[in-house]
């Protein structure tokens, strides 16, 4: 691990750490949407998608049902 990485991971600067966390959330949200859409297109059930994401079927359907129903 590089010195830079260790410094950032240690979270010396709260602003940098929080920005990284926000970016991770946004990146994860984007990836989730892409994969859910693809899984549904490939014929996955909401139950299967939910199980893979570790959430309830209701949660995943509420979030994506309208778009990738």
């Amino acid at each position, binding site marked *: 691990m590089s010195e*830079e990485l260790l410094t*950032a991971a240690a979270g010396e600067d709260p602003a940098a750490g929080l920005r990284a966390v926000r970016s*991770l959330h946004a*990146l994860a*949200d984007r990836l989730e*949407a*892409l994969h859910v859409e*693809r899984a549904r297109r490939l014929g996955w059930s909401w139950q299967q998608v939910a199980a893979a994401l570790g959430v309830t079927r209701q949660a995943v359907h509420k979030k994506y049902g309208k778009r990738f129903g």
Partner: protein
Amino acid sequence: MFERFTQEARAAVIGAQEVARRLRSDRIGSEHVLLGALGTRDSVAARALARTGVEPAAVEAAVRALPPHPIDPDALAGIGIDLDAVRTRVERTFGPGALDRPAPDDPADRGRRRPAGHIPFDGAAKKMLEVALREALRLQHRRIDTGHLLLAVVRLDDTPAHRALLAVGLDPDTLRTAVIATWAAPAEA
């Protein structure tokens, strides 16, 4: 590096800060520098744009329509994540631009307030200033003006500023030609 900037290029950078604040951004992005350059009266950038027949207001509308981009490559690099590497793999499966479409709902974007005080440049904006400097060196110009800033936008095709130009239907080559023609033409009074 600003000591080599012309008066109008400095005004453009100050304008960029105001634009970023007006658009409620907590970073000065390349798109804000672009609007700062175009919004500076009689600047090389403003005159070059006028030559293309595109209205500055159209560019601003395009910037406002850009998808919100809370994924900050610099911040991710800070924790060891190479966003470009992620992007390359994601696009292999999902096609070009897959990561750039807005996420369904970014809670972090809700209720954001107008930032006060000093706003830092983001990575793309810093790159844009750097490339503007390089363009000036390449052309053997002693000073950096808003024309060089536009050439930097033309060159940096992965920036929001570049995407805004494409969104208004402005061909990068046309803009480059317009900048060069503006330099060659005497400034209007």
